[in-house]
């Protein structure tokens, strides 16, 4: 009896070896060396920062010194609701996002359909349409400021040339046209990318479907509306995601042209967040605006993520 409870040292060693082997054979352990560094970086800097930012938004942290985590409440979020600046910035953000995304989708789809018709210089045309994407928004904002220049800019000179001098206003100086001016410049920058996404989608549709619809006597408009465009759902979804994300990049544009205080005509949440936190040192309030922006972005992307899950793309 005593001999059976007493472990033979040789057997013990073998067990330990087996145990060690099963640990090294464990799939999770085997993938660790590959995951450790990226996971720590993402965990600490991305998710750690998000959690910390949420905590900061519950404090009253402002000015200089250290945040006080002893009394946490949603005061900053209550302040937001009665802050006219926040309401205006939210309105502008939504308008900009919708206008920009819609225009990019329409122009991108039209260009993709045109480029898809066996164009001789397809490569050059694509290169030109996508060219603005490679330039920093910081730079293109200044190029567009020159386009919009009230006296010497291309836009107003063209308008005057065709007899529309009456509408040749100071596009980025006038609070009523600022947002439109920003949207046009952003559409210029991103519609090429939208075209590339739709073009890739069009190329995935089998050619015989075009032919079948044509033989059935469908006109070109019907062919596209009824047969081709409904099949671009995946492209449409990914284009919307990219555009919604990039619309937040309007920050660069507005920051360079107007600084941190663009006024109610061009203020958007990313700019307001930066102003409150880094210019006015209202850290907690800035963090709270950032939380709203984060939640709004993720919520607006849920349908897309669900779609991907359904399509088993994950």
């Amino acid at each position: 009896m005593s001999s059976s409870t007493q472990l033979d040292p040789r057997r013990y060693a073998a067990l330990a070896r087996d145990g060690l082997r099963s640990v090294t054979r464990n799939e999770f352990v085997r993938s660790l060396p590959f995951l450790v560094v990226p996971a720590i970086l993402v965990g600490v800097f991305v998710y750690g920062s998000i959690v910390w930012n949420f905590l900061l938004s519950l404090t009253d942290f402002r000015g200089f010194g250290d945040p006080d985590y002893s009394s946490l409440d949603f005061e900053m979020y209550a302040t937001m609701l009665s802050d006219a600046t926040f309401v205006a910035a939210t309105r502008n953000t939504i308008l900009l996002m919708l206008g920009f995304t819609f225009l990019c989708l329409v122009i991108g789809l039209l260009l993709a359909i045109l480029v898809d018709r066996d164009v001789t210089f397809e490569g050059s045309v694509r290169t030109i349409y996508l060219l603005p994407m490679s330039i920093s928004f910081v730079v293109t904002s200044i190029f567009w400021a020159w386009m919009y220049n009230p006296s010497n800019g291309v836009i107003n000179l063209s308008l005057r040339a065709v007899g529309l001098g009456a509408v040749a206003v100071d596009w980025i100086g006038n609070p009523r046209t600022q947002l439109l001016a920003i949207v046009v410049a952003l559409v210029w920058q991103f519609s090429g990318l939208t075209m590339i996404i739709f073009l890739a989608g069009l190329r995935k549709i089998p050619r015989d479907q075009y032919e079948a619809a044509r033989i059935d006597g469908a006109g070109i408009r019907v062919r596209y509306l009824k047969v081709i465009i409904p099949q671009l759902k995946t492209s449409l979804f990914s284009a919307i995601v990219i555009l919604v994300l990039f619309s937040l990049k309007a920050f660069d544009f507005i920051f360079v042209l107007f600084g941190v205080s663009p006024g109610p005509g061009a203020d958007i949440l990313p700019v307001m967040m930066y102003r409150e936190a880094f210019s006015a040192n209202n850290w907690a309030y800035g963090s709270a605006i950032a939380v709203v922006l984060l939640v709004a972005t993720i919520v607006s992307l849920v349908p897309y993520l669900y779609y991907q899950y359904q399509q088993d793309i994950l």
Partner: protein
Amino acid sequence: MTRSRSESTKDATVVSGSVESLFAEVSVRRVLLYVVLATAAVLFLLPLESAAMTSFKTVSGFAETLPFAPPPPDAATLAGWTQSWNALRATMLNSAMFVVPATLILPVLGSLAAFGLTITDWRGQLPVYILFMIGIFIPLQAVLVPLSITWQIVDVTTLLANLGPVNLWALPLAKEHHAQFVELAITHISFGIPLSTLLFRSHYKDLSDEMLEAARMDGVGMLTIYYRIVLPLSKPVFVVVMILAFTTIWNDLLFALVIVSSPAAEPVTVAFASLAGGMVQQFNVTMAAGFITALPTLLVYIMFTRQFAEGFSQTGV
């Protein structure tokens, strides 16, 4: 025979007639198509073209000529370019100091993570992958305040000074403000990993399972599989990710604004923004400065247009 001949000629005329009308219709359509595409191309190039022309003009030149017209001989000058080059030269180097290392490290980490999340099979793999994927969609504003506090607390300068056997900052060419390049690089890498992982993973999913399984059955270690089989097969993805990373990080403004505290470490985008803000009316200087700032990414774009398009169009996939 005569009849058949007449019939065949009739057929021929009918056919040639319809071909002609078809040809005419098609060619009108084609011409229209090319006109629309060319007009769009002109509209896309116009802001760049008028900026380029303006950059070579004198002050009186851009005030008096059309913005898109080439500079007349008496109003042409390179002053805008030399002035902005002198103002931005040092900051171009600053940008390169963190953009290049980040561009090289990011695809390596993305590829490693994608391998760890694709080839193996363990519980919790999908949630981890979903967390990585959500990382793509995080607006940078949501992390700015914590990041700025983090890099104030973490004293990279002192850490690096005590890291090796000698004080790093005592080495020739090393300056203490270079520590901020390390901060910028680490931040950009962390926020680039999710997208980079996604791009690699969508490639690794297509790799032959049988081949990898066979290698594993033969007792080949994971590291060897990665190094010998997977890595050589992912060269094209490396190019795509590197181009995406280089363009995004070079063009970034927000992280630099928040993280860089020493003016000596300013990247070119920040320097350009303040130069453009300070010289509102000297359009020749600001336009030239814009092209200088954009030059590296423009060159990368022209050399790797296809990979650039591939990378950016998969941002949301």
